[in-house]
C-alpha cells in the first residue's frame, strides 16, 4: 500500500527531517509510527498525503509513484486517504453532519447516498445522536471521533492519523485506538503516528520507530525502550 524508497526530506533552511527512509506497509496492515517529537513522524505522514514532497527518493501509494503526480492531481490522490489530526481540524460554523459529509460532497455523491453514509460513519464512532449538534459543544474525545467519522465516511483505502489521542485521557485513547483496529479489520490500511507507547504495546500491532529522521525499529513492539529511542 505504502512503499518508501530511500526517501529524504530536507526543509528549506537545511533541516533534514527524514534521511534515506525505506519502508513498506502492506495492504490491509495496521502500524504505529513512533519517535520523539522532531523525529520526522509528521513529515512522513505529510509526504504520504502530499502536503510535502520528498527532496529525494520515491514514494509509491497503491502502486502509484507520487513523484509523477502533478499538483492538479493531488486532490484525487487525497480522496483515497482519510486523514485524522490531533487538533481535529473540524469546522465550527456547521453542525457535525455537515462536517462529516464534506468528503462526500467534494466527490459529488448524491444526497440520499450522503445521508446514508454519514449516518453509517457517525454510527460507527457512536455519535449518531449528535448529527445536528455544533462541534464546539462536544467534548475533546467526541470531537476527535467526529474527525474520525469524516476520515472514514468515503471508505478510503488508507487511514492516516497524526497523534489522534494526543489530548485525550487513557480511557478515551484506548477507545479511539480500538476504533482504528475495527476499521483495519474490515480491510482499511491504517498508519497512526503516536508516542503513546503503553497503548501500542497493549495493542500488539507492528511499530515503526523514527529517530532523527531514520528508521530505528520496524516490527512488533517487543522492546519499549528501543521504541522510545532511548
Amino acid at each position, binding site marked *: 500500500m505504502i512503499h518508501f524508497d530511500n526517501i529524504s526530506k530536507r526543509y528549506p533552511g537545511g533541516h533534514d527531517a527524514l534521511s534515506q527512509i525505506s519502508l513498506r506497509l502492506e495492504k490491509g496492515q495496521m502500524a504505529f509510527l513512533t519517535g520523539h517529537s522532531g523525529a520526522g513522524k509528521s513529515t512522513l505522514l505529510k509526504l504520504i498525503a502530499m502536503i510535502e514532497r520528498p527532496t529525494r527518493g520515491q514514494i509509491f501509494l497503491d502502486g502509484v509513484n507520487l513523484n509523477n503526480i502533478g499538483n*492538479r492531481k493531488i*486532490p484525487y490522490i487525497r480522496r483515497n486517504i482519510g486523514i485524522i489530526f490531533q487538533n481535529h*481540524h473540524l469546522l465550527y*460554523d456547521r453542525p457535525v453532519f455537515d462536517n462529516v459529509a464534506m468528503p462526500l460532497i*467534494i466527490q*459529488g455523491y*448524491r444526497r440520499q447516498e450522503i445521508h446514508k453514509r454519514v449516518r453509517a460513519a457517525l454510527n460507527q464512532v457512536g455519535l449518531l445522536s449528535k448529527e445536528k449538534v455544533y462541534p464546539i459543544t462536544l467534548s475533546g474525545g467526541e470531537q476527535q471521533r467526529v474527525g474520525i467519522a469524516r476520515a472514514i465516511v468515503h471508505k478510503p483505502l488508507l487511514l492516516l492519523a497524526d497523534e489522534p489521542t494526543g489530548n485525550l485521557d487513557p480511557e478515551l485513547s484506548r477507545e479511539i485506538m480500538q476504533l482504528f483496529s475495527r476499521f483495519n479489520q474490515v480491510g482499511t490500511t491504517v498508519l497512526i503516528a503516536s508516542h503513546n507507547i503503553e497503548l501500542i504495546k497493549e495493542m500488539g500491532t507492528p511499530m515503526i520507530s523514527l529517530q532523527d529522521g531514520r528508521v530505528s525499529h520496524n516490527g512488533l513492539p517487543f522492546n519499549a525502550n528501543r521504541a522510545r529511542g532511548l
Partner: protein
Amino acid sequence: MRNSPLKSSRFLSYLGHHVRVSLASLGRLYTQPIATIMTAAVISIALALPVGLYIALANIGQVSTDWDTSTQISLFLHTHVKQRDAQKLMRRLEKHKDIKKVMMIDKEDGLKQFKETSGFGDALKYLDENPLPIVLVVHPRIHADQPNRITKLVKDLGKNKYVEIAQLDVQWVKRLYTFLEIAKRSILVISSMLAIAVLLVVGNTIRLDIQNRREEIEVSKLIGASDAFIRRPFLYTGFWYGVIGGIMAWMITIISLILMEEPIHNLAVLYHSDFRLSGLGFKNTLLLIFISCSLGLIGSWLAVSRHLKDIEPS
C-alpha cells in the same frame, strides 16, 4: 476512481451541487446584510453614474432628432424672378430625392411677416415697391447627423440660376454632434474606470472572504477538494454581488429619473415641446445587470486566482 458514484447520477449531482453552492453563497451574504449592502452599494453607485450619463446622452440625442424636423434651407431668389418661375422651381425641387417638402413664401407673405415680426413695418410705406425676394423654404430629407450631405445639398441649390442665396446654419448641427461625440467618448472613459473600480471592490471583498474562510479552505484541500470546488463558492459570491449591485444601480437610476421627470417636463412645456424623459428600457436594463454580473464574476475570479494558491495545508 474506486469510490466514485455512478456516472449517470454524477451529472445530476453536479448540477445539484452548483445550485446548492450558489444558494449557500447567497445565504452567506444574507447572514451579513450590512456588509453585503455596503459592498453592493459601492458597486451600484459606480454603475449608476455611467448609466445616468448614458441616459442623459440618449435624451439629448433624442431632443436633437426632434430639432432635425426644423432643419431647413432658405433659398432667397433673385428679386426679378417671377412668381410663376418660382412655382416651377418649387415643383422641380419637390421631386429631388433629398428633399422632403418645399414651401414658398411669396413677396406678399414675406412683407406681411416682415411687418409683423421686424417692427420696421412703417419704413416699408416709403418704398415704391416690395423689396423682398420670393423665398423657398426647403425641408431636406437628410438627417442632421450627416452635416456634410446637407452642406452639399445647400451648395447645389445655390448654383440654381434663380437662387441668389441658399442659406443654412449647419454650424450648430456640426457643433452639437461633435459635442455629443466627445460626451460619448468621455462616458466610455468614465465607464471603463468605474468598471475597474467595481473589479477592485469585488476583488478586495472576496479576498477578505477567502482570508476568513482559510480554515475551511485548508480542510477542504486536505480531504481532496479540487481547485474548482474550492473556487466555486467565491465565484458565486462575486456573481451575487454583481446581481445585487446591478439591481441597486437600476433602482438608483429609476429613482433619479422620477426625481428629474417633473422639472424636465416643466421645462419642455416652456419650450412648447412634448418632450418626455426616456428611461433605460428593458434591453438596456438586462444589459446593465449582465455587465454587473460579469464584473462581479471577473472581480472574484481575479481575487480567487491570486489568493487561493497561497493557502495550502501544512
